[in-house]
């Protein structure tokens, strides 16, 4: 390396060192938290997933893929995986359909009550998932508010079986995820200028054509971000499937915890990794495909 002799070069080097130091100080705490609180436990869990489970000894040090083989060769577990994927995709799609019009209205609103409307969207997030699911339980039960109302009105003769079904879980997850989707889409749609919509209309495009040719493509990166966010939350749902799905409906999140309940850490770790990998791969794939199409 050439010796820095000129004062200007020395100044640049000092500034570079200063920027590096500032960047290190700013990034350091967050990096330490992520490494200690997230990456390290994930690495430990990954190692555990190759251990063996012996009922009397719990976890035994080993290097075997038997936990992964067990998961992928047993239809019971693969069915749970496909159920989780189906529920997550369906919830994401429904959230997108329900959230888009609402987000659009919020984004385009000039009302002085706009902040109140946004707060109303955010309000459910103030309540924990388990508490919300408990609320749904009182609504969906065979003698819950919904069935009692429908029976009273004479719409049905026998109570509808909503609790402990996949239907209940889907409704519950949509209710949990919808605000996230609305908020993500709203911020994206606010970034799409109203002018481009008006330009499309002035060139003869109808509302549907404007949506398809202008609004949707411009908002697509945000839509993808919102959808991925919603998908990840649905794939990893725990409280809602546990409380609303009942004992016979299984998703991956409760399955992972179930293995830890049994002290079967190696298999629980393997399932956790299958879930995490599938979620990340599918989310990344969606992102890549959408961006490639846009080019």
């Amino acid at each position, binding site marked *: 390396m050439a010796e820095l002799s000129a004062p200007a070069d020395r100044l640049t080097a000092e500034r570079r060192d200063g920027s590096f130091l500032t960047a290190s100080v700013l990034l350091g705490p967050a990096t330490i938290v992520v490494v200690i609180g997230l990456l390290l436990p994930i690495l430990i869990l990954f190692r555990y997933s190759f251990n063996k489970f012996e009922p009397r000894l719990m976890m035994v040090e080993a290097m075997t893929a038997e936990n992964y083989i067990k998961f992928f060769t047993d239809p*019971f577990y693969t069915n749970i995986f496909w159920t989780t994927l189906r529920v997550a995709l369906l919830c994401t799609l429904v959230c997108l359909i329900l959230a888009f019009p609402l987000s659009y209205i919020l984004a385009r609103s000039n009302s002085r009550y706009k902040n109140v409307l946004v707060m109303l969207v955010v309000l459910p997030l103030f309540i924990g998932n388990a508490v919300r699911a408990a609320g749904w339980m009182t609504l969906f039960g065979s003698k819950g508010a919904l069935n009692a109302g429908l029976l009273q009105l004479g719409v049905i003769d026998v109570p509808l079986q909503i609790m402990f079904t996949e239907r209940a879980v889907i409704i519950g997850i949509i209710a949990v995820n919808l605000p996230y989707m609305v908020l993500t889409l709203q911020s994206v749609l606010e970034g799409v200028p109203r002018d481009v919509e008006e330009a499309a209309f002035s060139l003869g495009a109808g509302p549907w054509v404007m949506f398809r040719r202008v609004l949707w493509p411009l908002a697509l990166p945000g839509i993808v971000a919102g959808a991925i966010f919603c998908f990840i939350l649905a794939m990893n749902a725990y409280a809602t499937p546990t409380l609303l799905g009942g*004992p016979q409906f299984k998703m991956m999140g409760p399955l992972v915890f*179930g293995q830890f309940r049994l002290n079967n850490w190696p298999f629980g770790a393997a399932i956790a990794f299958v879930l995490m990998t599938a979620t990340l791969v599918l989310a990344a794939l969606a992102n890549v495909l959408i961006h490639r199409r846009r080019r």
Partner: protein
Amino acid sequence: MTNTARPSISRRHVVRGAAALTAVGLAGAPSGAAAQGKGKIVVGTWGGDYARLLNKNIEQPILIKSGWEVIQDQAGDPERRSKILAERRLPRGTTDVQGLSALNMFQMHDAGVIDAIDYAKLKNAAKLLASMKYSYGVGHIYSGKVGVYNPKLINPAPKSYKDIFDPKHANRLGIIDIQYQYTLVCAALAAGGKVDNLEPGKKLLLECKKAGARIYPTNEAFAQGLKTEEFGIGVMWKARVVQWQNAGISVEAIAPSEGALAYVSGFVIPKNAPNKDGSYAYLDAMLEKTAQEAFAIDMGYNPTVTNAAVAADLNKRIGFAPEEVKALVDLDYAYMTQNDVALKEWWDKELKG
């Protein structure tokens, strides 16, 4: 206007402030130590009523009053067992005692993470029922898995597990998902099996399921189903039945002729408990006559010490007749530990699948 009003912090101020704080801290230290008294006991326990009653009946009136500081580490038993296992390599763990079921106490003993109990250190050990003196843990309270039924829906009353796990009840039979171990053993006893041979029970449960038996996720959901009369018969801890009766649910309990399956809740000491004197103080306090009697009244579980006096009318509701106590059936802990994962897999795949 001058600058004198503006607060300014100089190096000298900082040094003086730090010195003052240190002085206050040092001056306060003896009083702080005095407030700690005998030291700190960290108790691993389930949350909810049990934690509240531990505080009300053991910690406040006995331990805290005599100078101990008690901190509860509340979580479900799977999480706490995981914690004990995860901390096994640490020289100092984070809890001094852990509340677990008898089966879980055995599992932790089997995993080599809990201490053997030195009963010489417990002044109340002499009063402890022999069956509650585990070498690795101390029984705190016990109850039995009794038959429960709603007399409005089920007539005649069942007399045995066999009468309860009868496919003729169809969808009037309720089963609790989280109680899979005990339900399997009860069904095995009903079908002529034993605590170390649950195959007949599996067959019987499948028949009941095929006939329409309902599976409820939790004890609370089961209680709700009983209340709404979705079903009318099943098995549950006698102590819970008392709580449900108190809540106005139409439910009666019977001690099954095969012998009721016993449920024991106790405490163990992790090998790396930081304050073992505190651990033994807690175990001794929980065996105090007053604490045991209060638990019988508040929670409906039976005392594990011989000197606890339970009123006759309460004993009739929560207790067992001498011949019923004699007939109590215990789990085969080694068998259950060895087969727990396989049993749960069968339960999830075959029974619920």
